[in-house]
């Protein structure tokens, strides 16, 4: 009942949700044994910055594009090639599109 089947695989979301609810109850009960108190509005709730002072919130912001640094740095040879091709000229992009279509066409004919 309610099992989604693809022929290669299957999934029953109802069963998964039921299992998640039970696991959540177990986790919630387990967590409730822990100490829930802390001292609000004290030094304790300040962000840990290895002893450095905290500047304005806006200045402490970590840019989202840092996420891509690992990729751009490790594959910089590939990205430098892509940057050269990425001219911003629509005519160039249409030319690339036509070239790729031509390659597909030739491969199909062969």
């Amino acid at each position, binding site marked *: 009942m309610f099992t989604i089947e693809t022929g290669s695989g299957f999934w029953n979301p109802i069963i998964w949700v039921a299992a998640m609810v039970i696991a959540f109850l177990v986790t919630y009960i387990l967590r409730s044994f822990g*100490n829930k108190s802390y001292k609000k509005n004290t030094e304790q709730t*300040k962000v840990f910055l290895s002893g450095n002072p905290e500047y304005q919130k806006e200045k402490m912001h970590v840019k989202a594009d840092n996420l891509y640094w690992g990729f751009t*740095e490790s594959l910089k040879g590939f990205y430098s090639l892509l940057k050269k091709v990425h001219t911003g000229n629509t005519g160039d992009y249409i030319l690339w599109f036509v070239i790729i279509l031509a390659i597909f066409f030739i491969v199909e004919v062969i």
Partner: protein
Amino acid sequence: MDMLELSEIALRVIIGTLCVAAFGIIFGLLYKGIDRKLSAHMQGRIGPPIIQPFRDVRKLFTKENVVPENAIPWIFNLVPMVGLVATISILIYLPIGGFPPIISWAGDLILILYLLLIPSLALVIGGFSSGSPYAIVGAQREMATMIAYEFPLAIVIITFAWKLGYKLNIANTFSLATIVGAPVWNNITGPLGFIGFAILLLVLVIVTPAELSKIPFDAPEAETEIAGGLLVEYSGRNLAMFYLTDGVKTVVMASIIVVLFFPYNISNMLGLESYPAYTVDILFYLLKVFLVILFSVTLIRVAIARLKIDQIVYTYWIPLTLMSLIGLILVMWDGTITSLLGLT
């Protein structure tokens, strides 16, 4: 479906989830203790006692549960539980201790791959919600690591599906019951298939420490550099939840490798039946999980220093992706040498 069948399923899900939760947490912490003890001995230290992780959790429960002033409190408190819940839910789809999965018909390997993402995403969301620059840097690194290791991991899974579905013509190729019923090593016809699956095993062993944020792939936490990264602001019972998630996920990842590559029981070979057979199979399963953890977590983290995030991405996207593709091609060519030589 009648009421009797429905109530049987409900009972199975309730009791099964409770049992796997207890199993995952207890053995997760136990294996964590063994891992710490062994790695300490490998580094010439005495190390903590094996039960130290249990003491750590007990101590964390007594500590204050600080919510930083920059945090979004409800997300900050919720995600540690979400991570543990998702990890426990994976265990109900996995064959544990030589027994079939509790609900083998309700989920396959693709579902497990998706569920494996949830604990990592919980860490990422928890990091972002902390409002700490260290945690945000850690969360960004965790996201980059996730994107990096998913590619070779997906190729390993696809190879299994191709082998079972296309080559052996078996239905439900992503089903764990199907995979356990047709062990890969029994279905290879030549040396290429053996080498191919050995390469894929190696790839999965190297993916495991990244899934678990262990050295050398622990850049998202990197205590000496970003003071714990995503977990820097977590303390008390919230940190205990992430600690437990790590333990359970270690059992999950090791169990996946056992299921895919070593789904064998020894009770048949020993001619055992009933309870002695169950006992021997459970012990054998625990031994297999231990060996997988030893090779994929303990030995690697003792032998190699932490990689930078660009090195992690490079490792997974270039050498490991190429290795997994070579493994896939060798499995596809399995049997060609023997058929060329006329041995089949």
